[in-house]
């Protein structure tokens, strides 16, 4: 057989390539640039890369193609929208990551060792987090556009591996942070094994690694259904794990709590976009015609996830864990968009992902601000009277909570409405009912936090809200602004999505 050289359309791949290049440069910088200059250099490189990549995405927004890389990635409306969302979310997350106070000076050093102390004193801060972030982002960009099994798997690992490490980089409570990394890694690897196994069966069913090929055989209905079903089930497990759906959610509360808060924010927001992006593509294109087999299951998972997330969140005492469970509940809502399996569902999901991602980053940005002498204070009881201490921060946080709760005039409401109506339209009434119910339950704990912040008097225990650094401030202001604007004038974005979001197969 003859070997045909691959033809790559670089301009369409450029957003990802730029990120990879940036990441590699970052690695070199880590090696060769002097300690003093490193942080600022790394930051500027990262931001620069992201902006450049975003610009590229903008440039190619209208060039749709399935052959960008020999049919292993597809660039279409949803791809563009998702990539853009990921990049925007990443930029504001990087602003948080820039606050090096969250990250261990020397990941390799023992917690509490002289080595570490020395590193901190001499300001010997390693900044490998930046290239890691860029690698992860590159993976996330690739995940939703990949259109064959190999790319999909590689992308998955590409976005996961750096995150495993980043979860362990916290400067304070390092044991917990490392534990988070360990758990995330083991469970992640575990689930990706399922994912891979499922892929194997899909391949076995269709004899093709390409989505288009698999889709054809699903449509044709030829081939052994058992293989298909096992394939769908196992691939679903891998994806459901990434989005944190019950019962594959167990990692998220621990990891969210253990990881450095900026990373948590980044992970919670960007990973969800990437994972759901891939999920949408796979279920809307590849599995669409086998929906008789998976919609019931996914509906069940969605319902359980919504209710479980909301219920358990009520009982949380730690703000990061509470947000983790709330993100589980939101994963449930988003699954409703997948189940919808119609244009409205696709549009709604994309809108929801963007709105939710921005709000999440904003919320975690505020979590980074509430501190005492030894780092962040995540115990909710110590958030009492935050409204007195610093009204603006508290108000912003309340804004994000209201958005999560889906109160009108916030982006959350538009998102919830659109995704539920899409699901209802596809006849998934049960999911909608459960969604409404769990929203009611969820309102419970969002409001409880607001009460804590505004209606209870502060206790003097050294909890302070430190003045946000310029970058963090930008993040917060940007995300609150987006949250409100999308709540009041969602029309432009919605129209954009409606016009853009159609999968090409």
């Amino acid at each position, binding site marked *: 057989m003859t070997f045909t050289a691959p033809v790559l359309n670089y301009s369409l791949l450029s957003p990802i390539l730029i990120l990879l290049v940036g990441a590699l440069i970052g690695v070199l910088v880590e090696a060769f640039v002097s300690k003093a200059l490193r942080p600022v250099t790394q930051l500027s490189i990262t931001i620069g890369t992201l902006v450049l990549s975003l610009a590229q995405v903008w440039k190619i927004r209208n060039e749709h193609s399935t052959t960008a890389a020999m049919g292993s990635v597809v660039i279409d409306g949803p791809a563009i929208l998702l990539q853009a969302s990921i990049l925007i979310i990443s930029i504001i997350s990087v602003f948080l990551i820039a606050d090096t106070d969250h990250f261990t000076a020397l990941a390799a050093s023992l917690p509490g060792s002289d080595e570490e102390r020395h590193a901190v004193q001499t300001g010997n801060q390693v900044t490998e987090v930046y290239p890691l972030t860029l690698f992860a982002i590159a993976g996330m960009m690739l995940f939703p556009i990949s259109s064959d099994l190999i790319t999909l798997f590689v992308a998955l690992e590409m976005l996961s591996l750096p995150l495993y490490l980043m979860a362990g980089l916290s400067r304070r409570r390092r044991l917990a942070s490392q534990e988070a990394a360990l758990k995330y890694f083991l469970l992640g690897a575990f689930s990706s094994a399922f994912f891979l196994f499922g892929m194997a069966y899909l391949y076995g069913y269709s004899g093709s690694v390409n989505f288009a090929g698999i889709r054809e055989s699903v449509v044709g209905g030829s081939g052994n259904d058992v293989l298909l079903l096992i394939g769908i089930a196992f691939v679903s497990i891998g994806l459901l794990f990434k989005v944190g759906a019950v019962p594959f959610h167990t990692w998220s509360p621990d990891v969210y709590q253990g990881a450095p808060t900026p990373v948590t924010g980044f992970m919670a927001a960007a990973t969800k976009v990437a994972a759901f992006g891939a999920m949408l593509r796979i279920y809307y294109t590849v599995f669409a015609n086998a929906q008789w087999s998976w919609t019931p299951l996914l509906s069940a998972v969605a319902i359980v996830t919504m209710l479980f997330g909301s219920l358990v969140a009520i009982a949380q005492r730690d703000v990061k864990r509470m947000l983790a469970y709330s993100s589980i509940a939101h994963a449930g809502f988003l699954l409703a968009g997948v189940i919808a399996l119609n244009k409205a569902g696709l549009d709604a999901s994309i809108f929801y992902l963007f709105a939710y991602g921005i709000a999440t980053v904003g919320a975690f940005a505020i979590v980074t601000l509430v501190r005492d002498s030894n780092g962040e204070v995540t115990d909710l009881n110590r958030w009492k009277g935050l409204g*007195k201490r610093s009204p603006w921060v508290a108000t912003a946080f309340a804004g994000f909570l*209201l958005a999560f709760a889906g109160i*009108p*005039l916030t982006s959350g409401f*538009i998102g919830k409405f659109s995704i539920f109506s899409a699901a209802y*339209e596809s006849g998934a009434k049960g999911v909608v009912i459960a969604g409404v119910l769990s929203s009611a339950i969820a309102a419970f704990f969002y409001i409880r936090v607001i009460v804590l912040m505004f209606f209870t008097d502060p206790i003097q225990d050294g909890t302070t809200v430190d003045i946000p650094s310029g970058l963090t401030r930008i993040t917060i202001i940007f995300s609150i602004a987006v949250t409100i604007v999308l709540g009041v004038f969602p*029309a432009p974005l919605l129209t954009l999505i409606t016009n853009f979001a159609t999968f090409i197969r």
Partner: protein
Amino acid sequence: MIWLTFLMALPLAGSVVVAALPKTNEKLVKQVALFTTLLVMGATIAMAVGFQRDNVELQFVEKYSWIPSFGINYALGIDGLALVLILMSTILAPVVVLAGWNESHGGRWSVKVFYTLILVLETMMIGVFAATDVFLFYVIFEAMLIPVYFLIGGYGTGERSAAAVKFLIYSLFGGLLMLASIIALYVMSGAQGGHTFDLASLSHLQMSSTTQNLLFLGFFIAFAIKAPLWPLHTWLPDAAESATPGTSVLLLGVLDKVGTFGMIRYCLTLFPDASKTFTPMILVLAVISIIYGAILAIGQRDLKRLIAFTSISHFGFITMGIFAMTSQGYSGAALYMFNHGFSTAALFLVGGWMISRRGSSTIADFGGLQRVTPVMAWMFFLAGMSSLALPGLSSFVSEFLVLVGTFTRYPVHAIIATFGIVLAALYILIPVQKALHGPTTPGNENLPDLNLREKIAIAPVIAIIVVLGFYPSPLLKVINPAATHVIAGLGFSDPVPTSGNNE
């Protein structure tokens, strides 16, 4: 002339100005707030003058596309009912501001925040009655909760945050049920010629009776929580007990009217058949509310809770009138909404003054006020009289219309409800005797009587109560066309007198 948007813009602008003012200059803040609300009141009255009475169509209609992808419009328009309620809200607003001149002190936040919230709330109060797009209505319906929530929790007394949360959770729960129904409507409209939220077009939707019943319940429960109807009422006494008098006036006087207004505007219009199906059940609940609210009012020891329970009884009357499906019942209910706004306002404001002077809201702590503070005592007495629907005062007309209108179709309900008027005598006269009569209890000897500001604030309320008692026609003439329109739209006509058939 885009009247309604203008009306809504005014207080919003006012709130921005207030927010911009220096926190320290409280006097200025209050003056600006008062000026704004007065301006809105003037504008509303000016608009009302231009309202064509006999036109049953919506008037002052505005429509701009808001979220095209969902067919959502920013659509406003009012019929007689909406006009009356908007009038009530905008007249009450300045009264509340003036009457509660000092109630924003000692809150969690500055005076400025209080008035900003009040003004924002006024905008929403106008919008919620004017909206003709279901989505827009829902958005305002829900968003309204937030300012009220902070008004109760931030400036109330006692268990204020608990009460605020209770209020919010209750309302959100109802709201979400309504959201489910709205989504269903939206989807069905999509299936039947284009997604829309336009009330008029939605009212033509074809749907199975089961669907209609379910969706009706979604809406009705939300409204029954707002209104509030037994047994969904338990949030109200707590909220009223903790909120400042001014807030309570807006809460019971205006916000709760959204419930009864919604029953007419949305339940009856969108789900005529379901409304008929559920009428018997609802009437029973209404009658229970009337009697239950009255009896519990009699049993209260706290003045504010007492007033809250009287309102539950009154909302029972309103609901009964709405679902009696007669023109008298409907007009009575509509008029009742207006009158209740003012009689409750009078009760709460005067009661609030008594409480703030005495430093306690326990009825037993008062006594002999008639000798100490005659003017205040008489105002309270008058307010009480209007609350027990004394003929010659406004609420009598509406209450009697409701009863007569109900009797012609549902005599039994009407008869039971009428016992409410005896209980009313009790729940008003008992506090009157305890608080105003008898020897002056220690600690009350030198309470100050109403000052000029308070007199000015309460005067218009009392005036309206008395004048409308003798001359309600202006309002009735505005309401009646809508009444007949709605009743006829439901395929009902007033029962004809039975006499003549038995010759």
